[in-house]
């Protein structure tokens, strides 16, 4: 991912759709100002990021008509998401025509409007991406406005708070934070009054590329496209200086020299880790020297428990990154590599073309502002289990070390003392299940992405069997590692979804899951299980999944007859009475 092209370049790209896009996004754009420039920039930006975007542009200022009328052209288009942009400038003008009482109630009415639009879209299974309001800064009251409930600024802020609240309540309502963008870019970058009053464009062309980039990321995130991991160098990246040369007490952290900049960087990384982004260290150092600051320096914010995989040796960084991938099984395109050394960055860029390798500024003071400006970590879902991800990877590293001690795989697997809890989709696991269907790219037979709302429908469906698999072993809890969705189709059970965490490959989970699927079929008197593999650029590892499980090939599909099926061996104990969703 390189520098963002300007609007002219993006509009040109918009006219050149990709022949083989990694992904095609499908969205609607509704606005009460002129939207052609934003629409073109969105298409161009999607293309720049490697996707095609089929975008429906609503009629000028016809938002309710498009959303509320079930026969509208918008709904006939079947978007996955609808972007709604209400311009604060329009509201500001309307304010003048309102009575003081109306102004004071504005945010309440605005919230009702937003909720109404959300409800209509949500009812049709469509995600809503709603722009919040950027303050036009009319200074009718100046700072005193904070004391006045019916001041425009007060009401706009209340509107934004209401939108945030709705975003927290509803999984399918997302806020595009235009107010935050204006805060960092400045009002002049966002708004050109001449353009607005003559041509009704409420966003200045210069800001459209960034707006488009972030919207495209929000559209792509539920399809599995987002960063999951940051690989970090140590010397002059996490602290100032070289620990092996300067010694523990002279590296710059805390108040020493440029320490405050590095401490700020560590704080940012710590917050990323807390939200489930995996941190890995890849440093050219002796392991002991590299670990010392984490263990002993009082101003280190990051500790070893924040680092999922710690690699410090004298091998080249490309080999080390491959090693890291072997442990955490995140694909290279979901990683960001941060290193102050341009030569290392170039090497990594060339070795892993899909990895994000930003050109870190020379001045450490600029690390956080620069990396933040890339907005690398947009995502569609966040669950409380995300915070545990680092611990999960750390225990994985322990399992890898344990494996080395066994010659016989069977003996190793028995030594793990694995046990599995099998459950149907239940409200408590809807978010995590949806998230897995959106994140999982590699061990995923059909790569069907589901939102939380769709998972809830499947849980309720009488023609579907839903299965979740949570595994523990003596090292720790792997959590939810596999999801299966089966659909009753006539005399057969069709495997709509079979995905698994790559971390548990080779442990017998596939066999255990198959035993569970066959049992579900038998309980319904179904004699045949039908599987399908839909190839993508990332799931080559499961091409022979059904062959390996002794399914027979039949046309493009895979068939298993349950008569005569004997349970496959898996060194995994069932932990509870199995609950399978009943029809």
């Amino acid at each position, binding site marked *: 991912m390189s520098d963002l092209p300007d*609007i*002219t370049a993006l509009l040109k790209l918009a006219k050149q759709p990709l022949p083989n896009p990694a992904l095609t996004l499908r969205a609607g754009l509704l606005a009460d100002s002129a939207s*052609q420039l934003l629409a*073109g920039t969105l298409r161009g930006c999607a293309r720049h990021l490697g996707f095609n975007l089929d975008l429906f542009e609503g009629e000028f200022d016809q938002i309710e008509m498009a959303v509320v009328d079930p026969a509208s052209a918008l709904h006939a288009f079947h978007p996955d998401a609808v972007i709604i942009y209400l311009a604060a400038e329009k509201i500001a003008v309307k304010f003048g025509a309102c009575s003081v009482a109306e102004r004071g109630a504005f945010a309440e009415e605005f919230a009702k409007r937003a909720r109404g639009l959300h409800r209509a879209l949500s009812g049709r299974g469509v995600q809503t991406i709603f722009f919040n309001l950027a303050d036009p800064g009319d200074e009718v009251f100046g700072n005193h406005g904070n004391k006045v409930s019916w001041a425009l600024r007060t009401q706009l802020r209340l509107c934004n708070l209401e939108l945030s609240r709705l975003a927290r309540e509803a999984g399918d309502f997302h806020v595009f934070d235009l107010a935050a963008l204006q805060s960092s870019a400045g009002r002049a970058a966002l708004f050109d009054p*001449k*353009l607005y009053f*003559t*041509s009704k*464009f409420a966003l200045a*062309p210069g800001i459209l590329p960034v707006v488009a980039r972030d919207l495209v990321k929000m559209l792509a995130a539920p399809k599995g496209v987002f960063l999951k991991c940051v690989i970090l160098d140590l010397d002059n990246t996490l602290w100032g200086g070289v620990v092996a040369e300067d010694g523990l007490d002279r590296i710059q952290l805390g108040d020493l020299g440029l320490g405050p900049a590095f401490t700020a960087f560590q704080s940012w990384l710590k917050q990323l880790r807390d939200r489930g982004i995996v941190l890995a260290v890849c440093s050219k150092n002796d392991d002991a020297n590299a670990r010392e600051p984490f263990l002993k320096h009082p101003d280190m914010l990051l500790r070893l428990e924040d680092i999922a995989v710690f690699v410090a040796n004298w091998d080249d960084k490309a080999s080390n990154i491959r090693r890291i991938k072997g442990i955490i099984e995140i694909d290279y395109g979901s990683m960001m590599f941060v290193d102050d050394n341009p030569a290392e960055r170039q090497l990594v860029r060339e070795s892993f073309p899909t990895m994000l390798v930003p050109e870190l500024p020379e001045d450490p003071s600029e690390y956080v502002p620069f990396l933040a400006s890339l907005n690398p970590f947009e995502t569609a879902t966040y669950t409380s289990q995300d915070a545990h991800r680092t611990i999960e990877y750390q225990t994985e590293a322990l399992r890898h070390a344990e494996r080395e001690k066994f010659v016989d795989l069977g003996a190793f697997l028995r030594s793990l003392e694995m046990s599995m809890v099998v459950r149907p989709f239940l409200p408590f696991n809807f978010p995590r299940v949806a998230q897995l269907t959106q994140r999982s790219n590699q061990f995923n037979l059909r790569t069907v992405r589901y939102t939380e709302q769709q998972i809830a429908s499947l849980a309720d469906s009488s023609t579907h069997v839903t299965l979740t698999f949570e595994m523990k072993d003596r090292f720790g809890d792997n959590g939810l590692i596999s999801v299966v969705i089966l659909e009753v189709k006539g005399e057969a059970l069709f495997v709509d979804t079979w995905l698994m965490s790559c971390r548990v490959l080779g442990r017998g989970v596939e066999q255990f899951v198959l035993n569970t699927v066959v049992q579900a079929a038998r309980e319904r008197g179904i004699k045949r299980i039908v599987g399908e593999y839909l190839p993508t650029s990332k799931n080559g590892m499961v091409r022979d999944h059904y062959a390996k499980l002794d399914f027979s090939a039949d046309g493009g599909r895979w068939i298993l007859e349950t008569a005569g099926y004997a349970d496959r061996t898996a060194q995994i104990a069932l932990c509870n009475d199995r609950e399978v969703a009943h029809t």
Partner: protein
Amino acid sequence: MDTTDALWTELTAIFRRSLDDDGLTLSEKTTAADVPGWDSITHILIVVAVEKHFKVKFTAGEIQRLENVGQLAALIRARKT
């Protein structure tokens, strides 16, 4: 009107980029009707690009009164002197 000086060359470059036409040549009398692709959208982008490149700001009225490229060049020149 000097159509060979730096201002005219830079203006032509802006038009070429915005209209995606490397071979475009402009004359003083050129109007939007004469150039394929010069529509209301590209017009806006050309004005924005001109303002940014020459570090000038036009009023809405001035833009609305422009009839051809020559008048645009004259407007820029007047601002820069």
